[in-house]
């Protein structure tokens, strides 16, 4: 019974923590432009994240090696260092975007001045990381993020066309004209990337070590990775449906976070809007914490410094300075007034570019019988893993050219 409760809580936490600013904005925009025709990209991303998350968790548990220790071993010092720098720049940009997004939502909810809210929320996040255990942080934000379900309820209440939704599983380009085709490809890559944001996986893998998962917990690892991601993907589908139902017929291309959040409570009263705002704040605040911690985890794991939220801050000075530094730098970026949605666009595109460099080492380690013993990748996982390596590499090669050619996804 206790085990079942633990798994359920893990799945709920994974579900609540699945969505972030990038997904809220990018998927709603994709729905506004193409209806549900990019549903297949969400499905592809869901399979990819389950595969990647499960492998990372399994490698962390069996080999006791977190992602960036694996990256250093498999890629060597030089390429490993390039990957570390790229990943942490990405974490920094994403963290700045999430903090900026959090400030916008707080401003919408309370009316307090945005800059004061920005600084205040950043300090509050730092205090939370410092004072709370890993499990408390994960569960507080993950479970509060469940309030995002109001987006799914809203989408269902707006009477979606289910047949059109299912037709979205067909990946045939549903656009004509050069610009429309490029936009379609850009949003397909963007959705795939937003689903696979690597900080989530690094955080998850480090969490497996933080929470001292053992080989007997591998079943839980699979359940949390699979069910949490499937349910989280359904939430992403709801965001796309809202874009398709509310924005597409009105020729709206939502460029403001407020518009995307308003959609989450559209058919309901102002109380539902409060729920949508709090749910989005939990997801975005959680993502800000995950990116800050991921930055610190990455550095410490790569250079073999002590790390872990379960250890007193003074015992792991590089780790503590790492996440504090990430938050401080992200705040500086956000305070300069760069639009969070611009930052999110950059982080999604460059996230895809960096992805093969961390995915490949994990795939190789997961398939290494010498390291993994009987917990080595099964044949199915090996085949799927190789297919996704090809897909991820292709998407990584296409991401920057598509961003340039579509002017960052402008219709």
């Amino acid at each position, binding site marked *: 019974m206790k085990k079942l409760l633990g798994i359920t809580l893990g799945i709920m936490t994974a579900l609540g923590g699945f969505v972030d600013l990038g997904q809220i904005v990018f998927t709603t925009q994709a729905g506004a432009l193409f209806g549900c025709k990019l549903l297949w990209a969400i499905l592809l991303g869901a399979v990819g994240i389950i595969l990647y998350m499960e492998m990372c968790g399994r490698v962390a548990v069996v080999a006791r090696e977190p992602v960036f220790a694996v990256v250093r071993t498999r890629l060597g010092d030089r390429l490993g260092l390039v990957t570390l720098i790229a990943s942490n720049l990405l974490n920094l940009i994403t963290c700045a975007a999430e903090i900026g997004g959090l400030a*916008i939502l707080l401003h919408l909810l*309370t*009316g307090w001045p945005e800059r004061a809210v920005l600084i205040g929320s950043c300090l509050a996040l730092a205090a939370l990381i410092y004072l709370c255990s890993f499990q408390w942080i994960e569960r507080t934000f993950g479970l509060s993020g469940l309030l995002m379900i109001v987006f799914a309820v809203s989408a269902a209440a707006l009477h979606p066309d289910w047949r059109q939704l299912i037709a979205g599983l067909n990946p045939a380009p549903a656009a004509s004209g050069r610009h429309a085709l490029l936009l379609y490809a850009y949003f397909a890559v963007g959705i795939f990337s937003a689903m696979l944001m690597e900080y989530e996986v690094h955080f998850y893998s480090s969490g497996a070590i933080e929470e001292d998962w053992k080989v007997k917990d591998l079943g839980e690892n699979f359940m949390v990775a699979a069910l949490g991601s499937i349910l989280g993907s359904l939430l992403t589908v709801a965001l796309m449906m809202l874009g398709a139902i509310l924005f597409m017929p009105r020729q709206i291309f939502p460029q403001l976070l407020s518009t995307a959040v*308003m959609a989450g409570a559209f058919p*309901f*009263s102002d109380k539902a809007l*409060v729920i949508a705002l709090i749910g989005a704040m939990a997801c975005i605040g959680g993502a800000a914490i995950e990116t800050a911690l991921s930055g610190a985890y990455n550095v410490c794991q790569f250079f073999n410094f002590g790390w872990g939220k379960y250890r007193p801050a003074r015992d792991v000075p590089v780790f503590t300075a790492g996440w504090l530094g990430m938050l401080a730098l992200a705040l500086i970026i956000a305070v300069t007034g760069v639009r969070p949605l611009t930052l999110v666009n950059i982080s999604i595109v460059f996230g895809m570019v960096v992805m093969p460099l961390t995915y490949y080492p994990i795939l190789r380690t997961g398939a290494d019988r010498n390291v993994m013993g009987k917990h080595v990748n099964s044949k199915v996982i090996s085949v799927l893993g190789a297919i996704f390596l090809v897909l991820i590499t292709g998407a990584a090669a296409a991401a920057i050219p598509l961003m340039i050619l579509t002017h960052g996804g402008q*219709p």
Partner: protein
Amino acid sequence: MNRFAFPRIMRSPFFLLIAALVLTSCTGAGSATTDDLRSDLRSAISLASETDLFISQIESSRLLPKFRTADADYLREEARRQAADARKSAGKSSDAKTFNLCAGQLEQLARELASIRTPSDKGTLAQARLQVATIRKTLLAAEAGQ
């Protein structure tokens, strides 16, 4: 090895492709094209529709007062930013008239948003909605003319 040679990564096809794309995208930075105009008009139409949706939510009492003010300010800021961009493009384009029309409509939209940012009577909201519909129609006509 010639130490003045380009590093190997800079000679890779991928790097050359990226460099070519960046340079290609930069060459258009000096003048505003028809594509830019179409994109500006679409963004402006989107913003006008967003404003209409926003007013409909206020009319149905589905927004919190603080949300209403803050969102009106975000929409207004966006309208002003887009108007400034369109004015800038007008100076660099042979289609200055349409760019200026787009900017003018966006400035009008910003004024309408200023009038509804705080609680107002139903008449003000209805009037603003009519104005926004006119702005949208004007922009759609301009887009159709392209």
